[in-house]
C-alpha cells in the first residue's frame, strides 16, 4: 500500500481548538509541510502571537516561543541574532502585526532582519471576540463597529504588504489567500519561498495570507470562503507585491 496523505512530522497529534472554517488550521499545516519538505524541523524556531494562534505551539512539533502582543518581530530578532543559522519565523495576526505591533514589524523589516513572517489577515480580532482590526474592510460590521467601519471614525484598512514595500529592507512580500485549493497551494509555495530566502540569508520576507474567520464574520464556513474570493481580494490584491531577492 502506498501512503498518499499523512500528518506532517512537524505536527503533533493534538486536536486543534480552531472554529470550523478557520484559516489558521490550514496555514499551520502548510507551515508544517514546508518545514518537513525543507528538512528543517530540527533547526526552526517559531514565534506564536497573542490571539487565537498563540496555541500554535500545541500543534507544531518544533521549538516555539510566545511573545507579548505585537512583539513577535522583536523576540524573533533576539533569537535570530543569537542563532543566525537557525530558521526563525513569526506567525502573527492583523491586530498583533498591524495595530499594536506596527512599530516592531516596520523596524524589523527595515533592518532586513533575516527572518520570515507569516501574517494572517482575517480583517478582525478573533480571540477577543470580533473587534475591528486595522485591516477591517470599510462597512464591515464588528463588535466595535456595529454599524460598519467608516473612514470618518476609524480610518482605512491598512495594506501591510504595500506599506512595507517602500522599505529597502523588505526583500520579499507576497499576498496569498486560503480560499481555494489552488490558492492554498500557492500559499504553501509562498511560505516555502520565504523560508528559502531566509536560508539563503537574503533578508526579510513576509507572506500575508487572507484567511477566513467565519465565527466573527457571522458567516458559515462556505460563505466565509466566498467572502475572501469576492470581497477581500478586491481590496487586498493577491500576488507578489515586492521581490528584490535577485538584486545584489
Amino acid at each position, binding site marked *: 500500500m502506498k501512503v498518499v496523505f499523512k500528518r506532517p512530522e512537524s505536527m503533533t497529534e493534538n486536536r486543534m481548538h480552531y472554529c470550523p472554517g478557520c484559516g489558521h488550521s490550514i496555514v499551520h499545516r502548510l507551515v508544517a509541510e514546508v518545514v518537513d519538505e525543507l528538512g528543517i524541523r530540527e533547526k526552526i524556531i517559531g514565534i506564536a502571537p497573542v490571539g487565537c494562534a498563540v496555541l500554535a505551539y500545541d500543534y507544531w512539533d518544533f*521549538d*516555539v516561543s*510566545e511573545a507579548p502582543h505585537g512583539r513577535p518581530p*522583536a*523576540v524573533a530578532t533576539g*533569537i535570530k*541574532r543569537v*542563532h543566525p543559522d537557525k530558521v526563525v519565523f513569526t506567525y502573527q495576526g492583523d491586530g498583533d502585526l498591524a495595530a499594536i505591533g506596527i512599530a*516592531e514589524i516596520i*523596524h524589523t523589516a527595515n533592518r532586513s532582519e533575516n527572518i520570515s513572517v507569516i501574517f494572517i489577515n482575517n480583517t478582525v480580532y478573533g480571540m477577543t471576540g470580533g473587534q475591528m482590526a486595522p485591516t477591517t474592510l470599510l462597512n464591515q460590521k464588528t463588535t466595535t463597529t456595529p454599524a460598519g467601519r467608516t473612514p470618518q471614525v476609524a480610518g482605512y484598512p491598512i495594506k501591510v504588504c504595500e506599506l512595507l514595500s517602500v522599505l529597502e529592507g523588505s526583500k520579499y512580500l507576497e499576498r496569498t489567500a486560503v480560499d481555494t485549493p489552488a490558492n492554498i497551494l500557492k500559499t504553501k509555495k509562498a511560505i516555502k519561498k520565504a523560508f528559502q530566502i531566509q536560508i539563503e540569508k537574503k533578508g526579510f520576507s513576509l507572506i500575508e495570507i487572507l484567511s477566513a474567520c467565519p465565527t466573527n464574520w457571522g458567516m458559515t464556513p462556505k460563505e466565509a470562503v466566498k467572502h475572501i474570493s469576492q470581497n477581500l481580494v478586491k481590496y487586498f490584491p493577491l500576488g507578489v507585491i515586492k521581490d528584490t531577492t535577485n538584486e545584489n
Partner: protein
Amino acid sequence: MHKKKVLMKGNEAIAESAIIAGCRYYFGYPITPQNEIPAYMSWRMPQVGGVFLQSESELAAINMVFGASAAGARVMTSTSSPGISLMMEGISYIASAELPCVIVNMMRGGPGLGNIAPAQSDYFQSTKGGGHGDYRLIVLAGNSVQEMANLTVEAFDLADYYRNPVLLLGDGILGQMSEPLILPEPPANKKLPPKDWALTGAKGRKKNVIRTLWLHPENKLELHNVNLYKKYEKIKKELLKYETYLIDDAEIVLIAYGTSSRAAKSVINKLRDENIKVGLIRPITLWPFPEKIINNIANSKRKFLVIEMSMGQMVEDVKLAVAEKSPVYFLGRAGGWIPNEETIIKKIKEIK
C-alpha cells in the same frame, strides 16, 4: 588580569563588567542618564564578537532581550525610569517565562518625563512588581562605581542560577560619575543549571516551548504561581546583601541605599564625635529586602531614620520590618536633589 585600577564612569564600568561576565548581546534605546552604556556597547560588542542593536523603542528592546534569553544567551538592556515603565510589559512576561537577563535602571526624576537628574523614586516599581501579575525581580543596588561593576558580574550568575530577571538599580550619579575601580574578575564558575529549556532547534530532544499562557482548566496557572512563589522564597533565604556600619550601640540607625547611603554614611563619624550614636544599614539587595536584620535590632531604645531620594518609598518596607518596635522617621529629597550632610545632621538632632 584586570588588577590595575582604572578610572571609569559608572555606566561604562557596568558595560565592561557585563562583557567580563560573558554577556554578548545588548539591546537598548537612548535615554539620559544611561547613554554611555549603549555608546560603549556599540563599539565594544563587535570587538568581542557580540551583538549591539539599537532598538526602535524600549518595548522592542526588552522583547529582543526576551528572544535572546529564550535562545539561551547572556543578554542585557539598560534604560532609565520612563524607559523602565515601557519595559514593564516585557519584564512581566520574562519573569513568567523564567528567562534570565540583566536589566539596568539608572533612575532619574519622575513621574512623567520628570527630569534627567538622579533619583530613587522607582523603588516601588522595582521591588513591588511594576508589571502585572505575581512576580519578583532580584534587585541589586550598589553605591559606588566599583560595587556597581561587581554587582553587574554577579547579576548574570544570579539570573542564570535562579532563571530570573535581575534588575541593577542605580541613578544618574552612579551612572555619570567617574571613580577609580578594579574591573571585576569573570564569574567564579558557580555551578549553573544547564539551559536545556532554551530554543536551539529541537535536535535530538523533544521540542522546547517558552510560554506564559496557562489556559488549562486543570489549574496550571495557579500551580505556576505557586512554583514561582517557591522560587522567590528560596531566593529570599539564599540571597541577602546588606552593609551594616556601627549599628551595635547605635541609638539612631540610618537606612539608605545607593547614592543616598553615601550621604548618610558621611555624617556618622561626625555625629559620633559629638557623642550621638548613629549607625547605618545599607540594603544592597532591595529585593529580597533585609527585613530580618532590621527587625532583630529594632527595640524601644532605638530610632530609625530612612533617607531616600524620593518622597518616601523604601520607608514603607522599613516600617513593615520594624513592626512598631521602634519609631521610624523619614528624610527625602525629590526632583534630582540629594539630602546633604547638613540636612541629615539637622534631622538627626531633631529626632534624637
